[in-house]
């Protein structure tokens, strides 16, 4: 009976300590989870903003490519001819 009594006192104490640890873990993990979520949201926002920038840049690039089509082709031809000679020397 004496041991049972001791157990009945020790078990709630241990359970309380364990509970304390679990509560601490809970809030700690919740904080981490929140941070991760914020970080994801940040990346999402950045990605959205970059996507807009990327789309704008691509549109500008396409326009420039269209306007300078002949010149780009000329540039590519010189590069191609150069590479042909470089290959012959390899």
């Amino acid at each position, binding site marked *: 009976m004496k041991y049972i009594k001791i157990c009945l006192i020790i078990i709630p104490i241990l359970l309380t300590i364990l509970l304390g640890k679990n509560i601490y873990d809970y809030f700690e993990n919740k904080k*981490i989870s929140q941070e991760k979520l914020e970080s994801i949201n940040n990346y999402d926002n950045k990605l959205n903003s*970059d996507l807009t920038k990327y789309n704008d840049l691509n549109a500008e690039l396409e326009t420039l490519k269209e306007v300078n089509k002949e010149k780009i082709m000329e540039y590519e031809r010189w590069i191609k001819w150069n590479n042909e000679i470089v290959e012959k020397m390899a």
Partner: protein
Amino acid sequence: MDKMEQRNSRKNGLIFFITIPLIIILIILNIYFIKNVSDLKSTIKTNTNLKEKKEIEYNNNLVEIKKTEEEISKIKNIDNEIINAKNQYYQTLKTFEDKVANNEVDYKIAYLTFDDGPYNLTHQFLEVLQNYDVRATFFTIGYNKEPCFDDRSKSCADLYAKEASLGHTMANHTYSHLIFYGLYSSTESFMSQVKKQEQLIKEKTGLTTNIVRFPGGINTSKHLKNSIIEQLRNNGYGWVDWTASNGDGGYVPNKETAINNLKKTINEDIEVVLFHDYNYITLSALPEVIEYLRSENYVLLPLFYDSRMVNK
């Protein structure tokens, strides 16, 4: 004694009554939080993966943006990029030419050159060269080009730009080419014709040329030779004659003769081949000439100022 036992028994009952539910509640609470922590950990793991994915996506996006920005800047600067690419090409040609001259590669070089144009026939020369992916050198003159000398219903003025746009080297053969009408009467006369042609080429193509060929060849300039060469040098020009020809400046009866004439003159590792782009026989022989030279391991290239074949 009984009372004492009764009191102990009541006390024990009370302890059981309080601690057992407390233990149960604590166990339930522990289970609740353990489960929640476990759920949170799993969420964190998922979110960490998601974050890493987003981070990679973000970085890839940044790389793409940088690439696009670089491409935009390159296109905005396309004129300079073309000049740089051209200069790089000519530098590569110089290295290649040196290797050929030093027998470091198994190739030879033939610089195909066309004198006296452009003519209306030049369109067809350009077509053959384009079909065979060959860049050549055009020693152009300006006299009698608008309308074309060989077809008065057409203008040959646009051909300068066409030749240049196809990657051929634009070179100077003087404006008039009038050997017997004062071209070689003095150094000044010769130089004024060079400059006049230079101006015409610049106007038609936007390019500055720096290679000259003497109409009739260097020896036609006779006693003015050294003086003209000095003036050319002072004005940044190099000059070039030829080492091989099919004889199309004179009478060539047919294609076979033209090809045989040329074959007889081809014997060096680096050849400058003279043609005239007004000559129908040369035009008809050109595909076979190109195939022959390639079969002999010649690489057909346009002339450039730093070439060892261009005298300075």
